[in-house]
């Protein structure tokens, strides 16, 4: 702070700080507080707002348990509230996205950090970042076109005689998975690559010299070293996937439903902002709990991730 005063003068510093504070307060803190507050209030006609019916209640939160349906989960028939099902599926598929991202990333990060000539690194990074130049909406639509029933992918595979008739790729959660992995894989690559490149190559060689086959070297030396990087990448990919609305909306099928879509439907179809707000905070809370639980399970500390 003192340094800033010296560099920019008192007036400029104050203006910059106040503007930042104003932006944070008005566009981040205040809307969230309003949303949190409204999540505890019932949806009422305008005339009754502030009236005797306008009491704080948990009713909006408890709505997730309304409306049970019969379905099967992994072959077991269950009766489960529909929104709880949506929420569980969202968590499950976000987890799947995280795992897929990791499986894609790990070999690539190892290749980039330990095998590739450092001179080619800038090229690889550039190639990795090129998709980011296109907006997320366009990227999702691009995938929608590629995966369409009579789109390029089906046509190509039919022409190559890999499949004999066009496949409906966007069915169930397939489209959502592809879209989310594609959108968020970079959030996994960079932390894992960073962790990987800080590993002393001599340790890999030492393990090999002691007779270790490649998979054990990875299991015992490389993977443990990269744990903080993998953890921070995973948290980012998981949270972003679970909170994504665009990809599930564009690449979702008739049989896929993301919890964020449920929130959106409360907000814009039911026009019930109060329940929508309650659901949004439920998602935030549950995801945070879930991530903390998994971190505990894998013995990762928050300070490891911050590194």
């Amino acid at each position: 702070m003192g340094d800033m005063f010296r560099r920019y003068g008192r007036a400029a510093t104050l203006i910059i700080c106040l503007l930042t504070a104003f932006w944070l307060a008005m566009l981040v803190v205040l809307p969230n507080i309003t949303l949190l507050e409204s999540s505890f209030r019932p949806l009422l006609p305008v005339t009754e707002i502030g009236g005797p019916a306008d009491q704080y209640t948990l009713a909006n939160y408890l709505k997730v348990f309304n409306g049970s349906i019969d379905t099967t989960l992994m072959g077991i028939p269950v009766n489960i509230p529909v929104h709880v099902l949506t929420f569980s599926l969202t968590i499950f598929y976000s987890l799947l996205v995280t795992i897929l991202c990791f499986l894609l990333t790990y070999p690539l990060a190892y290749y980039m950090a330990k095998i590739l000539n450092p001179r080619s690194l800038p090229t690889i990074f550039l190639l990795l970042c090129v998709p980011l130049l296109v907006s997320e909406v366009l990227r999702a639509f691009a995938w929608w076109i590629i995966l369409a029933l009579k789109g390029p992918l089906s046509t190509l595979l039919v022409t190559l005689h890999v499949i004999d008739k066009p496949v409906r790729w966007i069915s169930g959660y397939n489209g959502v998975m592809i879209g989310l992995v594609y959108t968020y894989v970079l959030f996994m690559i960079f932390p894992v690559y960073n962790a990987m490149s800080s590993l002393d190559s001599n340790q890999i060689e030492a393990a090999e010299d002691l007779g270790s086959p490649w998979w054990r070297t990875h299991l015992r030396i490389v993977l443990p070293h990269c744990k903080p990087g993998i953890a921070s990448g995973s948290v980012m990919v998981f949270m972003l996937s679970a909170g994504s609305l665009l990809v599930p909306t564009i690449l979702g099928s008739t049989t896929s439903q993301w919890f964020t879509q449920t929130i959106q439907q409360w907000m814009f179809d039911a026009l019930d902002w109060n329940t929508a707000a309650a659901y949004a905070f439920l998602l935030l809370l549950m995801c945070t709990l879930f991530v903390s639980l998994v971190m505990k399970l894998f013995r990762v500390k928050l300070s490891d991730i911050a590194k």
Partner: protein
Amino acid sequence: MSAGIDLENVCCDFGSFRAVDTANVSIEPGEFFSFLGPSGCGKTTILRMISGFIEPTHGQIRIGGMDMKGQRPNQRPTALIFQNLALFPLMPIWENISFGLEVRGVDKAARRKRAQELLDMVDLPDAADKMVSQLSGGQKQRVAIARALAVEPKVMLLDEPLSALDLKLRQHMRAELRAIQKRTGVTFIYITHDQGEALAMSDRVGVMSQGRIQQIATPRDIYNNPVNGFVAGFVGENNVFTGSVVSPSAGMAGFDTGLGRLTARLGDGALGEGIKLYVRPEHTILTETEGAENSVPVTVSEVSFEGAFIAVHAKAANGQTLVAEVRNDGAATVPAIGAKRFASFNAAHAAILPDAFTGG
């Protein structure tokens, strides 16, 4: 238990650069062999070829008589101790040591027991459950040795493992390494740029320069009978005269320099003009009267006290400085600065040698 190693015409090229040029050496089982040379001379490349991280471009490497071509480092009976040791920081010490056994499917109790035995052997009995970061440099060194010994290698390869230690510890570890080698009987191949280390520990030394092995001999031979100027210069100090060989006979030769004619042993391949004569400072004496041969008139210019010996620097008529080392045994007389003396040496202790062997 231990195995010999044969390098036959081994070459290693990195692009157009030849890092190791036609290396031929036969290392006996149970021998302590050092490769000595300045950095960039190819000694580490030789070590990495023996351990299997680099394949030779030409030639054959045999360990215990078996051709190692195509064998990965994890298939070879060698254990390498890295310059930075490369201990695994996320494992406790005992797991570090027993990692090689873990790889071989030894069960946990047996691994733990073996790790403890090795820790006792390297004199660190209480370190089993510590982490690498809790140990000092010398202790890490011992753990690295224990880790390499755990896999019962036939050959231990050491890549300047003592270079990061301070002087006292380094001298202590020298003796320790030598003792471990004697006790286990494993063939040790030791890489160093420190001539003191190589001479003190090794059974034989291979001196390297510019990818070529210049000389392979016992430490004593390397020092007393260097085959060329590089070896003479790298291992110890010299007074050097430049001149030309005249009337060689029976291994001796006259040597014409600007300071008169000298006589010395004639090394192989030392021919022609601009050749050099080498004599050690401890074989150079300063006398008041001119000797029968190899006496150069000099003026004492500097006396430096080195502890065990006193180095007397003296200038010859052509401006060249010669050094004579006088043992500090209490009886030695040290001339005053400016005194006129003769720098003399015995012809048997001086040698006319060619420069280093280089590629081609």
